[in-house]
């Protein structure tokens, strides 16, 4: 790997994840977040070279939902801009790439979506091909349950194992004030929750939540003045795979595995177990275990610490959940994690996914030190 530009996360702001904000529209939720993120970096809006937003029209329940967000992002005078129909974690990738191309030094990356206005199970059915899969009424909970079923059959993982993974997230999440779910739960409690779609219980699935997020990225030379402890991007890669769930081996995530290999190589690491913390965008305990396999992690090991934030199980705002994984790592590595700080954490992985059954995965390797001289 030739030398790249060192780029850091220097700021992040979000609203606490809630089931439904009755008082604000999606752009109105975003405005204070952009202000806060910039204020935390000690810069005015004009200090930012590039802006990028992630949202989905079908989640917004209207075409061009992202256009209204321009008005709350400080888009005057006109700004270099892009919008992706993707989670903000993927938007951050593009902003990072733009810095590699030398086209900007600073960027804001926002994610917004008023998840509570629509019905994600219906909306995400429409992600499936309209000829074979969508007409069957498949929704993301059902496809996740199919994946869990295939994984359990192959691996021997039990219902109780899934409950344990979910409980670990819930227990960690109780210490995170930004979460929608704040109550710890034990495996026994979760085992008593009703089936959502068997083999997944309601206690293994996140409630629908909403928020707005803004991340600030800055290249070396700018980052240092914007943050006391910038968290540096040491490696990143993302990969997608074919959609048809019956044509994939659902018991593993080939795209996550490849993305992890590439990102680790960029970071100069041999294995994911060399990091201290991992934040996984897993919507079910089965997905979390499949991702552990893809990363080559022992799911039973104490290190790296997995999902100290509580993970998506404690808050799943669509379009921001991936960005929040990065945010948690930023907090962990920059001394902002408070009571849930992982001792001695210097390097970590943040993951995000989109699509049914972990179709598209991005892996970030982040650290307290610059990667390139």
């Amino acid at each position, binding site marked *: 790997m030739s030398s790249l530009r060192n780029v850091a996360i220097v700021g992040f702001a979000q609203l606490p994840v809630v089931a439904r904000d009755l008082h604000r529209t999606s752009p109105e939720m975003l405005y204070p977040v952009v202000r806060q993120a910039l204020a935390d970096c000690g810069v005015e809006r004009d200090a930012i070279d590039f802006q990028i937003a992630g949202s989905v029209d079908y989640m917004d329940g209207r*075409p061009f939902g992202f256009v209204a967000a321009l008005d709350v992002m400080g888009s005057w005078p006109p700004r270099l801009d892009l919008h*992706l129909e*993707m989670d903000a974690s993927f938007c951050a990738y593009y902003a990072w790439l733009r810095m590699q191309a*030398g*086209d900007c030094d600073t960027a804001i990356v926002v994610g917004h979506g008023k998840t509570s206005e629509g019905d994600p199970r219906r909306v995400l059915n429409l992600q499936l091909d309209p000829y074979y*899969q969508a007409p069957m009424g498949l929704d993301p909970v059902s496809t996740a349950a199919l994946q869990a079923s295939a994984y359990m059959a192959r691996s021997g993982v039990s219902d109780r194992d899934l409950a344990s993974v979910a409980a670990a997230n819930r227990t960690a999440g109780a210490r995170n004030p930004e979460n929608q779910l704040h109550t710890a739960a034990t495996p026994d409690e979760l085992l008593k929750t009703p089936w959502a779609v068997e083999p997944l219980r309601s206690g293994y699935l996140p409630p629908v939540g909403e928020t707005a997020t803004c991340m600030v990225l800055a290249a070396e030379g700018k980052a240092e003045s914007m943050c006391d402890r910038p968290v540096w991007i040491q490696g990143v890669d993302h990969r997608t*795979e074919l959609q048809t769930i019956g044509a994939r081996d659902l018991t593993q995530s080939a795209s996550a595995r490849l993305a992890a290999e590439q990102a680790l190589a960029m970071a100069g690491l041999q294995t994911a177990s060399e990091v201290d913390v991992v934040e996984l965008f897993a919507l079910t305990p089965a997905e979390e275990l499949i991702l552990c396999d893809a990363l080559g992690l022992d799911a039973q090991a104490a290190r790296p610490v997995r999902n100290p934030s509580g993970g998506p199980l404690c808050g799943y705002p669509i379009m921001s959940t991936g960005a929040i994984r990065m945010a948690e790592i930023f907090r962990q590595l920059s001394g902002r994690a408070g009571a849930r700080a992982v001792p001695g954490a210097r390097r970590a992985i943040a993951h995000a996914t989109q*699509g049914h059954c972990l179709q598209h995965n991005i892996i970030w390797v982040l650290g307290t030190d610059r990667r390139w001289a």
Partner: protein
Amino acid sequence: MKRPVAVVGVGQTQHSSRRADVNIAGLVREAVDRALQDAGLEHTDIDAVIIGKAPDMLEGVAQPEQFLVGAVGAHMKPMLRVHTAGSVGASTALAAVTHVASGLYERVLTIAFEKQSEGNAMWALSPNMPFMPPLVAGAGGFFAPYCRAYIQRSGCPAHIGALTAVNARANAAKNEYAHLREPLTVEDVLESPMLWDPIRFGETCPSSDGAIALVLASEAAARKGPRRPAWIKSGASYAEAMWVPGRDQVSPLAGRTCAKHVYDQAGITDLWNQIDAAEIYVPFAWFEAMWLENLGFCAESDGWKIIERGEQKLGAHLPINPSGGVLATNPIGASGMIRFGEAALQVMGRAGEHQVEGAKTALGHAYGGGAQYFAMWIVASDQ
């Protein structure tokens, strides 16, 4: 840009009001196959795929790039999906440029499409939303007042829209891929129904099914290709807020800012003489005069005079939309990338019957939202 980037392959579909012969994947693959063939490449040569399209309500599939992963050869590759309203085709290509310019990718496939016949564009693009004033009548109803304001403040005569539309169709007749290729006369346009006064039916873009794909490559990869590439001299996409007091919707600041950015980066100082052809996004005929001013080809209020003098025709000083442009072909999400691809074909000398003789430098342009999103690139035959 950190390093040079070139267009090494261009492929587009036959555009028409209803491509019932193919499904969404088939439409996209028609463009992709042609672009790869044009570049002398196969799917396995491509490092990443960047897809763009306008609102997903047009086809009724949410984030359709996810089901299209297999169709476009993106399995196990990075893929991004761009959406910047009407400008999306152009901003998608620019996102692909970033990939190559970063030094991390050698060959990137970028695709934009729309299959509007699967649904209803008017319904999809201007739904009646709760708590919103229920008045905007589609894109035409939104933009017509700004055309009127342009006419009033520039003194633009009433037949300029018709002259623009007639020229677009005359050019489209020479473009084998265009949707509307039948010639029009000024009388035809002036006698066509008034839809959103001052916009007549004949001054309005069609609703099309279509797709386009481009292959972008690094210098080293481009030099290995079978053909002379188009070199991307500069590119940028800007956006501005909607409700800015005094915002000039007739000549938006984002458009002027974006134009200055791409001219400066490409070293263009004498626009009128250095640009040999321009493909600009004109969904309603009046916008051609408006954008000529916004892009700086002439002084404010003089855009219509270029059209009245016929200087925008093929064979004249500054051919505008030699392909026929959006007025002849409008698969919304693809239209911006078609502008970019057509600009590239001009400087590659491969635009066929609508080739501008000796074109060395060309501008591609698109806009979207409430005239808030602008995306442009300058391509040239010489590196």
